[in-house]
């Protein structure tokens, strides 16, 4: 099921990599992502991912273990995003 993670974190270089690595280790692909915040202040992240409730709970607890993360809220019921009707177009990488 779709899970929505609302994360408040220090906006410092490397924070995003730490957050992403938590999802990667649980083999959970991030489907949607939004970040707001200026460097040196708090950042607000909204991440959507497909995961079971058990995995989502584990992800939330593991996210909270990160020193840069202050809060993780579950917004899965209220849905922070509209369904991902992507406006992006992808270009194939060429040599």
């Amino acid at each position: 099921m779709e899970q929505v993670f609302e994360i408040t974190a220090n906006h410092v270089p490397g924070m995003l990599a730490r957050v992403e690595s938590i999802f990667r280790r649980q083999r959970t692909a991030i489907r949607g992502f939004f970040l707001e915040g200026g460097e040196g202040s708090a950042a607000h992240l909204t991440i959507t991912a497909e995961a079971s409730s058990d995995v989502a709970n584990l992800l939330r607890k593991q996210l909270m273990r990160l020193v840069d993360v202050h809060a993780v809220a579950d917004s899965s019921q209220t849905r922070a995003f509209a369904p991902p009707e992507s406006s992006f177009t992808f270009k194939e990488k060429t040599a």
Partner: protein
Amino acid sequence: MSAQFQPREKTRVRAANAMAAELVAQGVSHIFGHPGGASLPLYDALLSAPITHLLMRHEQCAAHAAQGYARATGRPGVCLATSGPGATNLITGLADAMLDSTPIVAITAQVATPLLGRDGFQEADILGMTAPVTKHNWLVLEPQELPGTIREAFRLASSGRPGPVLVDVPRDVLQAEIAWEEGSVTASLPPRRADPVGLRRAAFAISNAKRPILYVGGGVISSGASAELRRLAKKTRIPVTTTLMGKGAYPETDALSVGMLGMHGTAYANWAMNGSDLIIAVGARFDDRITGKLATFAPHAKVVHIDIDEVEIGKNRKADYPLHGDARAVLQQLLPLVGAPDTADWWKEIEAWKAKAPLGYREEGDVILPQFAIDRLWRLTRDLRPIVTTDVGQHQMWAAQFWKCDEPGMFITSGGLGTMGYGLPAALGAQCGRPDRLVINLNGDGSFQQTMQTLATAVEARLPLKIIVLDNQGLGMVRQWQDLFYDRRFFSVALKNPDFAKLAEAFGAVGFTVRRPDELDAVYEKALAVTGGPALVHVVTEPTENCFPMWPAGQSIDTMVVEDPKYAAKSTKKS
């Protein structure tokens, strides 16, 4: 202490000197490191600091030595490496410390800030590389922030669930001048206590269990909860089993102990765990070497899970009574609430299992069995209360089985990561931290050769380590798996070894070789008598011995094979 380390308020000093002074203020007595270009400003500052620097011959050894120091003292160990390859060589040790919750502070020098991100000489993205294997890491770009970052690093390494942290400092930051005043040691947060409602529910479950078992991990040692655990076990007469990392948390020679559980644990500990109706897990994480196939593990048991790390509670096994908090604080809360359950029938069953499958090994005439070599040394030295470190492999599991440990911090091993090469540098670190104790490193021929250059450092520092190399001429555990699970298709496991005693002599240590069981005690005595430097005993052992009990990885505990079918008919000596 030199004048350099007693600065007046807001003295202007080089950041490297302020950093060295902060290390002194944090109580650092030893640093395990290897210098290089980028770290020279810090080495220059350390020259006049009251800190002993052990010049390791590889940075991996530095990280393991810091782990050994931390595990023997309970204080964070410190390792130091230069930029690029020096820093990347620390990674195995950091990963090991992360899995075993060992507090270490790794300091790495980095290329100067103008060169960051430009692939300069010896530049590596050590922050990116170590993020998954540290509790946290920092790249210090503002010289003024360096002392405070060091303080925070020590606080974080040892607070909550302990673990490794890394501070990466560019060379120009180390060289910069800053206004600095000596800071105080940052106070740790008070230990977390469990929710009182959950606590009462857990106490009721414990008091009314019929077949309870205390399942004790390394968290009991790191939180200093051994005394509380003993009181709980004595009050309730609940059997106690420990993990590899928990060895020593509860005295293994005590009647309530059923020894280590897990893939190579005692059969009766595993049967008791699997047959229990209530598992009281304290600072343990239900890892796969404990549970085997999770779906069939302890099918009738409810679980009380006490852990400082909320992530561990329910991660592998559902917790019916989750108690999130520091093991010592929670046991203190729990003690007055629990009554003694009626475990008389349960103990009869356990005693029957003990009689049915005692831990032991067979008698052999002319060849030394590794179990015998470990058992003899334990009997010879147990009154000296030695610290023992092991490496990884068969010898590690035999040590876990036959080296009975009665105190916390006395059995130091690589549990989670299973890092070959851990044992000797960890012994060096432990000896630095505990110069008052006999420190013995039990090693294998394969694992010894991964970090044997540490002998040079031990000789230089005149450390009286006792190194026992149990030489079965191969990678025994890998061989065992090929033997049991790959139709005896042995490949890449035989080792053509050097003469380890001569090798020790070449490093400047004292070396002995022993090949016969009846000569073992005399050689051990000679090695124990060596002072002023390390002694190595090369023990030539039976090469095809396998380690039992064992169950195949990923299989149910029910599949456990208690003793080697090859020798099942031979007489067995009980431990």
